């Protein structure tokens, strides 16, 4: 039984890798970019779901974390010559001028730096609850952006960084996504994951059971920040250009949309909805542009796309609060249910 599952899991992952290989060969560069974005948004969605969905801390600081990650990785991977070209307004601080790291250590470093920032922010802010926490994290994310605009000798200010090496390819983005998924699955099965969920359900009860609220909250927040930083780094090195204005609240909103749509507190749900939302974001671009059918022109309305996404979020939260999957997770039992034969029904604890 157990062995069977592991084999199935490994088989599914191998199958997926083969699928990626086929995509890599057949897709054009535009489609590849969307596919990459899907992987990155899975990482980002999961990291937000860890904080907001599993631990129940309503944090809106993701854009700031991503900015830290993207800038760290960007500055570490850019070639010294490129940096000199970028920093024509004010020279870069000498400490960063000469470094040029390979992508993997830069990516990890981005995560570590962001996790550290998350830790620094989290330890004071996580005493707060609900709306206060939301506003305080949102505030920190804005502060990060304002600081990045102002420290020209490190971030090049409002001009941003151009010519980042575009290291991110399908293996990096989806590889990270898969590692994140596996990590999250194991984390949620561990005692820490259970503690997170206990905090989400009832803080007072959790504390009475001997769970250190503060320790676990900071832990969840820091881990979430780590993955947000890695996601930001992947995004920066995919697009090749970053500037502080990229990391506005809209970005956090997109990730929130993914989490809500997939079901707050579901790894599977977030993964599926990350792909759906990312693809839909691109497909619905049509709405913003004018369509020419030869005999008739349908005027595109700029901004229509975001109207549809905000409507979608409203509809989901008003009428269908559990989202795509609620707090359910994928399991191979789904298939056995469809086929009609019942294997020992595993009692799931209702969350």
């Amino acid at each position, binding site marked *: 039984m157990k062995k069977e599952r592991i084999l199935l899991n490994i088989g599914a992952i191998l199958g997926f890798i083969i699928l990626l290989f086929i995509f890599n060969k057949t897709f054009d560069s535009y489609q590849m970019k969307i596919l990459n974005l899907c992987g990155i948004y899975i990482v980002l969605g999961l990291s937000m779901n860890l904080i*907001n969905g599993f631990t*129940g801390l*309503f944090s*809106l600081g993701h854009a700031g974390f991503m900015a830290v990650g993207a800038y760290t990785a960007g500055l570490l991977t850019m070639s010294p010559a490129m940096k000199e070209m970028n920093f024509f307004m004010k020279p870069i601080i000498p400490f960063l001028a000469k470094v040029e790291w390979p992508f993997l250590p830069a990516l990890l470093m981005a995560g570590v730096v962001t996790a550290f920032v998350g830790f620094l922010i989290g330890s*004071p*802010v996580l*005493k*707060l609850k*609900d*709306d*206060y926490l*939301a*506003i*305080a994290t*949102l*505030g*920190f994310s*804005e*502060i990060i952006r*304002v*600081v990045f*605009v*102002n420290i020209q000798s490190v971030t090049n200010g409002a001009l941003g960084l151009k010519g980042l090496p575009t290291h991110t390819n399908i293996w990096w983005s989806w590889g990270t996504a898969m590692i994140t998924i596996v990590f999250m699955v194991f984390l949620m099965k561990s005692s820490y994951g259970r503690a997170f969920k206990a905090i989400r359900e009832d803080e*007072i009860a959790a504390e009475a059971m001997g769970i250190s609220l503060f320790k676990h909250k900071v832990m969840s927040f820091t881990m979430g920040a780590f993955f947000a930083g890695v996601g930001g780094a992947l995004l920066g090195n995919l697009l090749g250009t970053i500037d502080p204005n990229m990391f506005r*609240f809209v970005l956090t*909103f997109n990730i*929130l949309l993914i989490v*809500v749509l997939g079901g*707050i507190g579901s790894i599977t749900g977030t993964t599926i909805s990350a792909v759906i939302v990312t693809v839909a974001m691109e497909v619905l671009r049509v709405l913003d542009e004018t369509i020419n059918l030869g005999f008739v022109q349908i005027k595109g*309305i*700029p*901004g*229509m796309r*975001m*109207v549809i*996404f*905000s*409507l979608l*979020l*409203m509809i989901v*939260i*008003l009428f269908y*609060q559990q989202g795509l999957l609620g707090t359910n997770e994928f399991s191979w039992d789904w298939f056995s249910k469809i086929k009609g034969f019942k294997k020992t029904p595993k009692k799931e604890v209702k969350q």
Partner: protein
Amino acid sequence: MTFQVFLQHLTNGMSLGSLYALIAIGYTMVYGILRLINFAHGDIFMIATYVAFYAVVLLGMQLWWIAFPIAIIFTYLFGRLVEKAAYRPLRNSPRISVLISAIGVSFLIENLAIVVFGGRPKAFPIPPMFNKVFNISGVSIVSINFFIPVITVALLIGLVYFINKTKTGMAMRAVSKDYEASRLMAIDVDKIISLTFGIGSVLAAVGGIMWGLKFPKLEPLMGLMPGLKCFIAAVVGGIGDIRGAVLGGFILGLGEIMLVALLPELTGYRDAFAFVLLIVILLIKPTGLMGQKLSEKV
């Protein structure tokens, strides 16, 4: 810095502070009654400014005294509509859902505004009476900077009277204290909540129009920053308390102006000032300067 320059900054700070205070009251009233940040408050403010703009364009500059009340009435109805559509269906839902709904409706209004009004900034028409410059012993005051604190104080007195002396005001206070008990006392809770949103929106509308007169540039996203800052003002003063919102508004307005005036090298950090203030206050005195401690029910 000479004394005159200081006075100049002080008048600017006072008028900005009054604007913040006016909008912060809307947040504080809604929070007092629903325990919810109305994320859409800043966007209601934006809608008011746009409606005032279109009303003035349609009616002509001379009829601004008709155009502005039209905008205020429209905003009142709009505020109640937002409450009915986005908050009422979720009255018994977990808080996180309500918060997400609040963010969602705020985004919806912003993006609809981009579609309907267009993303390009518009110039707000200023009737000449608000644009005169007085010179009082070396301190030049634009008349709008004089009107803003006066109107704010007038509205504030009216509001405090309304809440403390009228029957509806009493009902509002009752609802903010205890939901169920007020319902048992035959208070129509939904109606009172809706009315609270309406009044908050009216204050936001007045604030929005005056904001337009002071900073005459309209954009669909113009409500975002003032909205966040006024929420911060409400928290700093102690959310749920109208005096606190006013105090917070003035602290924030004066603080921002003085920061730029006294430390010009920190000008770039002006927008961060509010957030730093928020975090400091939340850590030192989470209930705000005037707030009372709420005990947590188990």
